[in-house]
């Protein structure tokens, strides 16, 4: 409860008790079995757990199936242009420390057209949670290769199969200076997904969460093996890591103790062959926060501003020297 609650919650005369219903917007219109739905559910739970006032919560997205998410929340939302969710979210954060900001983005949105913003948003480290719903494909536009599509997979733009190895969003993010929270999870292990988003929301900085997400419509069976064969998942555990509960620990027997302060080890883990590590790769709470810089002077009154402007004008006035 420490990070999630803002002052204004306490100011209310009658304390609200927010339930899941309070975060439910329009009826989700994803395909049956789409992994975006469990992400939505987990996000709603996090909001409820943290009792985030809906009017103080903003979900920002770009364009893609995954970017439809804000429409299904009953909070403020900004469904922007393809690839541009992150600069919008940073702009919102720049002058609004009181808001809770979540970003819903896809592998095309974030890792193709949004690459530059992704790299630099990590660097800015402004407080927000990025949910990268990575289905390894362009869903909304009907099955084109994405940067995270594995080599060999066929799509409408690469009929003979993708010839390039997949970009690993975690490996790239871990190479960016000032990264402060880097985690991975999957849409189909609800407690882990929820625990990860909760930890992200509580992190005092930018939390980057890559979520492996099923797209049954265009990538049927794609994650089936991973989903069925738990030995292919590697659970990263640590006292400072993400605690998803005993059930998850029991389900996933492949575990490794990993201190999220250890960047070098995180990078090695990110590229574990034949296994998908989930949990917290890296956390650095003392990474520099750009929003701290951006928010200076928020409290200045109108008259203080006028005085300051007059002072600047003085410098350019002619008569001041006579």
């Amino acid at each position, binding site marked *: 409860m420490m990070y999630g609650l803002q002052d204004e919650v306490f100011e209310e005369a009658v304390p609200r008790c927010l339930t899941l219903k309070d975060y439910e917007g329009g009826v989700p219109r994803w395909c049956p079995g789409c992994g975006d739905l469990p992400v939505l559910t987990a996000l709603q739970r996090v909001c409820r757990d943290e009792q985030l006032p809906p009017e103080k919560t903003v979900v920002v997205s770009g364009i893609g199936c995954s970017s439809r998410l804000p*429409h299904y929340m009953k909070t403020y939302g900004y469904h922007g242009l393809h690839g*541009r969710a992150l*600069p919008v979210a940073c702009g919102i*954060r720049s002058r609004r420390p009181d808001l809770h900001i979540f970003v819903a983005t896809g592998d095309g949105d974030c890792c193709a057209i949004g690459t*530059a913003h992704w790299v630099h948003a990590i660097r800015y480290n402004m407080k927000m949670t990025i949910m990268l719903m990575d289905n390894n494909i362009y869903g909304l536009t009907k099955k084109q290769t994405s940067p995270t599509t594995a080599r060999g997979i066929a799509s409408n733009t690469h009929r003979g199969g993708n010839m390039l190895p997949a970009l690993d969003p975690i490996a790239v993010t871990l190479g960016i200076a000032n990264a402060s929270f880097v985690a991975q999870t999957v849409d189909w292990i609800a407690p882990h997904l929820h625990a990860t988003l909760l930890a992200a929301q509580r992190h005092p900085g930018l939390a980057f969460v890559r979520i492996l997400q099923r797209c049954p419509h265009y990538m049927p069976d794609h994650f089936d093996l991973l989903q069925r064969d738990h030995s292919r998942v590697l659970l990263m555990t640590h006292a400072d890591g993400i605690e998803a509960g005993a059930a998850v620990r029991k389900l996933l027997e492949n575990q490794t103790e990993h201190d999220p302060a250890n960047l070098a080890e995180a990078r090695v883990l990110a590229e574990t062959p034949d296994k998908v590590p989930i949990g917290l790769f890296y956390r650095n709470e003392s990474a520099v926060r750009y929003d701290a810089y951006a928010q200076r002077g928020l409290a200045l009154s*109108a008259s203080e501003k006028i005085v300051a402007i007059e002072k600047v004008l003085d410098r350019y*006035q*002619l008569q001041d020297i006579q």
Partner: protein
Amino acid sequence: MVEQRRVTLPEHTVEIVSDSGEGAQTAGQIFGSLSARMGNGIWMVEIIPAEIEPPSRSSAGASGNRIRIGTEPVNNMGDLANVVVAFNDQVPYSRIDVGAYGRGTLLFLECKWATDPDESIRAAYAKAMTDFQSHGLIVREIPMEEECLKLVPDARRGKNIWVLGLLCGLYERDIEIARMLVTRRFSPKGEAVTQDNLDLLQAGFEWARAHLQESFHIPVQQHQEPMVVMDGNMALGLGAMAAGIEVCSMYPITPATSVTHFLASVFESVGGFVHQAEDEIAAIHFALGASYAGKTALTVTSGPGLALKMEALGMAVMAEIPLVVVDVQRGGPATGLPTRVEQSDLLAALYGSPGDVPKIVMAPASIEECFHFMVTARKLAETFRGPVMVLSDANLATGAQIFPRPKVSEDWLSPPVDVLPWEEGVAPFAWDPETGLSQRPVPGQESGEYVLTGLAHSERSRIAYESATNQRGAEARSRKLATFAQSLKPPLIHGDEEGELLVIGWGSTRGAINEAVRRVRRDGAKVSNIQLRFLSPLQPGLKDIFARFDRVMTVEINYSDAAETSNGHRRYAQLAWLLRAHTLCEIDCWSRVPGIPLAPGVIEKELRRRLHMG
């Protein structure tokens, strides 16, 4: 000491030119503000070298300042320079090429090159002397370096202030103000440097009084109110502060960047900050985010950056997000002439985004307007809930001018973010059927929750693909412009209300066009002119005004085909094109892309040609 002849003049145009790095710009700037502070009207334009690090003693390297001083307010750079101080014999060439010097220009020329050990330099100098004389220049050789070396060991780092002193002597400037300005400029570099420069100033001043045959007296007017002096980019920055804008989101690009350099140095004092984004696209979306969250933001750019913002501008119109966009125009297309003036982003500002994207576009015509238009722009962006574009250009950006000190008011500042609950049931796009206007909820307002989207949407901001909803949204966005247009007045006519020829301009050309028109009117021509401040929507009454003139033409700094050569496929200047569509009047144009401001004399010549005034 010679006896000086005192010549009293209404105005004079002075240039200081050197190799880049020799400080002619600094000297010019000080001379300009000194003159302004004394009470003269001034206009100051930078002379920018064509190369980033040009070779020394080259025509392409000419760097410096032009300062036009007058008793009356001055609003353009003028024609021929009256007095030039040149640090070598090569830099004047490029200025002669663009018509800046000619018959009667008094050229003070550093004479050390005449005796340079390098024979080719001596030869070049000799040739230049002949060339200059054949162009009608009056050359006075002066021993700049020699005099400076009496005081400092490295003349290259002192000549400029000596020259400043010389000009102070020549123009009877108040040496005390000059000393103060020199001190201000050099004190960050330490006391010794400051003292050296004060000595050089004094030496130049005294040398002038001892050696020059004349002194020029340009009487000053007493100002009735406090005046300020600054360049257009500072004025834009200060205007943004006075408008209460707190976020300036940008990516560096010449000639817009100095707006943000200025803000970076003072913005913090009003609690604002400059966000230097990773690119122009991020810059505008960051601003949109801030604005969505209740803080109307600013993004500043120039042509290539504007191109990259086109998609986001469409978003701002579609989702009705207030935003102020400043475009300091430079030469195009593509990288074009990055440091030079042009007015060719007009049609892109209006039509650059795919889809139907109605937005307000305005163009300040002076440095004073650069300031005030920002305050207006912020207010319009919020009232009409969308982007407002302010088109400045490289001429306003680097020119400096005096104008009455603005009386900044708390009303100008944007109000604090609304924290009261939103009235339940009111849609986030409750478009008024008449005006197209609606109010927006801001995050933090209870019951106002909605999802903004760039997709076609209903009043409730729900994605909607129905024909009627899409038509209705487009209509509301268009209606807002028509609503705003109702509050605009017809442009003021400079000159008679009717006549033979009406000249139309927009943006920074106002001063030069006014002056050209005044000159030909003095010879009896029935010419008037107007300068448009609003390009979208256009000010009302244009057709009526045009009807009262036999002929109408625009004067612009952008490309148009000559009427003669175009076989029915004439490419018109951009404002002319716009006005043709708007009024269906036969509107002619005269435009050029010289990379420099249009001098009044150049316009005058064209007007005389068209009026057969020989």
